[in-house]
């Protein structure tokens, strides 16, 4: 139950940031869903695995859904991707690093800073992996409209 409550909050937060980036209003529900799912995956996995692993799989989920939505709605994947990935960007770890540096806890600061870098690398890997999948793979998501499918096939991403 809490997990879904958190997912709803993450979705709301994602929509708020989507608004800041000027995403057209009709795409808000998709952005919210993607952001919420990313957070759900992250918060479930982080209980059993390390943060970078959880971030990796959450990123993969986010990008996968973003690409499906992009094909479905025929619009740039950037729209869903940027707002959807926002909950995963290691802003909190960044804060803790600064906090430990100021409180003179250098060892903890180094560890947290390094963890932030690892999470960032995990996000990078997630993005790179899923974008390696050919566009044709996502064709199943396109509306059943032959012309649109052909057009998508020509247009990469």
């Amino acid at each position, binding site marked *: 139950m809490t997990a879904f409550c*958190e997912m709803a*909050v*993450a979705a*709301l*937060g994602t929509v*708020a*940031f989507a*608004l*800041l*980036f*000027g*995403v*057209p209003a009709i*795409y808000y529900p998709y952005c919210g869903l993607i952001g919420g799912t990313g*957070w759900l995956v992250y918060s479930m996995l982080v209980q059993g695995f390390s943060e970078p692993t959880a971030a990796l799989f959450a990123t993969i989920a986010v990008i996968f859904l973003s690409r499906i939505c992009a094909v479905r709605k*025929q*619009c*740039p994947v*950037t*729209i869903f*991707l*940027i*707002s959807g*990935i*926002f*909950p995963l*960007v290691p*802003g*909190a770890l*960044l*804060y*803790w*690093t*600064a*906090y430990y*540096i*100021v*409180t003179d806890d250098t060892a903890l600061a180094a560890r947290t800073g390094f963890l932030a870098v690892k999470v*960032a690398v995990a*996000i*990078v890997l997630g*993005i*790179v992996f899923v*974008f390696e999948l050919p566009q044709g793979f996502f064709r199943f998501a396109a509306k059943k409209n032959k012309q649109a499918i052909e*057009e998508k096939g020509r*247009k*990469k*991403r």
Partner: protein
Amino acid sequence: MNERKEEEREVLDAAMLAGHILLENGAEIFRVEETMDRICRHYGIESCSSFVLSNGIFTTAGNKREEIFAKVQHIPVSGTHLDRVAAVNQLSREIEAGSFTPSAVIERLDQIQQMSGKSKKMQILASGVGSACFCYLFGGNIKDAAAAFCSGVLLYWYVIFIASPHLSKLVGNIGGGALVTALCTIFYKLSLGDHLNYMIIGSIMPLIPGVAFTNAIRDIADGDYIAGSVRMMDALLVFFCIAMGVGLVFGLLHRFTGGGFL
């Protein structure tokens, strides 16, 4: 013959304008290049080639049959308006499908460039809501989220009215981080929130350079190393500045309260 020349020039101008809008509003390099190429091809200009950096576009065209055209445009990075990216994408689709004249394309692009984004009030409110949500997600309670909402609202007011028109990027972000920390400390002292850390984490989220970070990764993955590394540099610098701002205020508090505070 002259008419053809005139039209070619118009097509290239349209492609340049489309690229300009895309690059300015947060599209990837790959998309900018592809859209420009597509517009040129559609109107029968085969010789066009463009080179896109994170803040500039170089375009040339010209061979035995086509007139020589060259243009360089510097495009300072401004805010992100993904609605414009979506609109240009839609337009490029329509160009391929339908029969737009090049001047009609330019007209449409001009309209897209004038598209009004969300109002400032909405943006400020969204920043507050986003801050509150992330404060809650990262471990705060309802009270913390309410405080984060207030500081998120004030932070974006600062971003819109002080930082982006008057301050450089570095100083603006250091100031943003410092402002958030100071505000949250005040709220904490007035016991409007219970966890200082979570309040600050939530409220700095609107400053985090998510767009630059994500686009940098995508550009590097596409092989656009120069643009990608410039954007990555941009993102890292902003991250660093936010941390500096937070650290600055914490450091001062630490000094004045003799370390008892943190």
